[in-house]
């Protein structure tokens, strides 16, 4: 893996060299800054072959726009090269697929099928707690905006853990003639909060986003700060990749692919559940 990084290093440095300018002793830094994939926007442009090595944008009318050779050069350095889980074979298969001569694949900002996973800190009952927000880009009548689509908050999930079926399965119910006694027996539900879910519909699932909004409105959750961000991409059919920011020294930095998987339609659902902690 390390060997492969050094093979790619000349590409990174070549990108940087073109514009390296010295400010005192900063030339090494400056090369690295050129090589860095500075924004998600730049990741998309480099992935698609929509900018030259100086970082200047290509437009559809430019000859080099989506140039296959350019993409072949960029794509290998858009992976986190310090991750041994990303095998060379898998990366090559992915690169070959997206740069296929007849049917190349591109990423699109407005293409859907990508989500942001934002780690945040909230104060909850006097303690700092991590909250994960999942955001999606939503198209509007005019323009677009990011919206909160899901949340993961451990205290919420814990509170709604499915009750132990062995204990409650055949004991916790409102009998079918409860209506004839004016549901006076309903008081029993509330004596056992742990099994309350058994009195809800079969297909009931807790809506944590509503709970999150409610707790904020009631002042029980207070936003503190953001603490980390990554993205999950499903835009390339049968593939999933994760995009993370690497703030480190060297030429393989910025927004890079940190995980890559070949997936089937069923796997996507499983993976989404995993990402959402469901």
């Amino acid at each position: 893996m390390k060997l492969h990084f050094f093979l790619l290093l000349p590409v990174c440095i070549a990108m940087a060299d073109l514009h390296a300018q010295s400010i005192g002793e900063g030339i090494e830094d400056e090369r690295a800054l050129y090589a860095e994939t500075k924004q998600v926007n730049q990741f998309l442009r480099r992935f698609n072959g929509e900018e030259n090595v100086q970082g200047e944008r290509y437009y559809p009318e430019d000859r080099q726009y989506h140039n296959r050779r350019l993409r072949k050069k960029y794509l290998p350095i858009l992976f986190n090269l310090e991750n041994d889980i990303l095998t060379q074979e898998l990366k090559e298969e992915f690169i070959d697929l997206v740069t296929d001569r007849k049917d190349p694949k591109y990423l699109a900002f407005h293409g859907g099928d990508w989500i942001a996973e934002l780690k945040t800190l909230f104060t909850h009952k006097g303690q700092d707690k991590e909250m994960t927000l999942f955001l999606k880009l939503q198209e509007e009548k005019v323009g677009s905006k990011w919206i909160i689509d899901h949340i993961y908050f451990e205290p919420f999930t814990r509170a709604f853990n499915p009750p132990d079926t062995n204990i409650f399965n055949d004991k916790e119910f409102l009998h079918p003639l409860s209506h004839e006694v004016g549901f006076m027996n309903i008081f029993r539900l509330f004596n056992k909060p742990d099994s309350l879910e058994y009195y809800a519909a079969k297909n009931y699932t807790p809506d944590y986003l509503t709970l999150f909004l409610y707790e904020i409105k009631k002042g029980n959750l207070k936003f503190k700060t953001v603490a980390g961000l990554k993205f999950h991409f499903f835009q390339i059919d049968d593939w999933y990749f994760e995009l993370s920011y690497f703030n480190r020294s060297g030429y393989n930095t910025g927004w890079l692919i940190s995980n890559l998987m070949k997936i089937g339609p069923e796997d996507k659902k499983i993976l989404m559940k995993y990402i959402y902690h469901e």
Partner: protein
Amino acid sequence: MKRISYILMLFIGFGLTQTLSAQDEITPERKRAIDSLAMEKIRDLGKYISIIGSKETPFSEAKRVIDRTLELFVDDAQMGVSSLSREEIKYYPVREYLERLMLLNYDNVTIQWFNIQYISDLELQPDGKYVGVITIYQRFEGTSDDGLVYKDTTKKDITVYVERKETQIGGKLIGFWDVLLGDVRVIETMK
């Protein structure tokens, strides 16, 4: 005065006399002109930060430059700062950030800007304004009287709002693009 010069630049750049519309397409040529206008504001920001941070700048002058700097920003813009040791963001209103810079306890401060920038695409927001992000890098070096040197390089991701406006000149409605800076994400980069 500065704002007038920006506006004039855009008139010259585009010769626009169209009616205002949120849906105005930004062609590559127009995008390039808006980019250079935004970069002019970023360069002003860089210049102002260097003046504010310099120990040679008198207090009254630094205060005046802070006011000028704030004119570059939309109201309520925040600086979100994280360090290598702490990924969590600390928020500062722009004025507070600049005042802290002014009051830094170093005898000598050098702020240099790398000649590197990355300009994102402009995206249309639901309110009809366009938004983009420009990434720049800054090197800070502060020396205290006992010779201790603090150095860092920060990446600054600066939000840029681009709005189509119109004004009346000689009874004629003239459209132009105005650029203001918004929230700035400041990340300490690996040295």
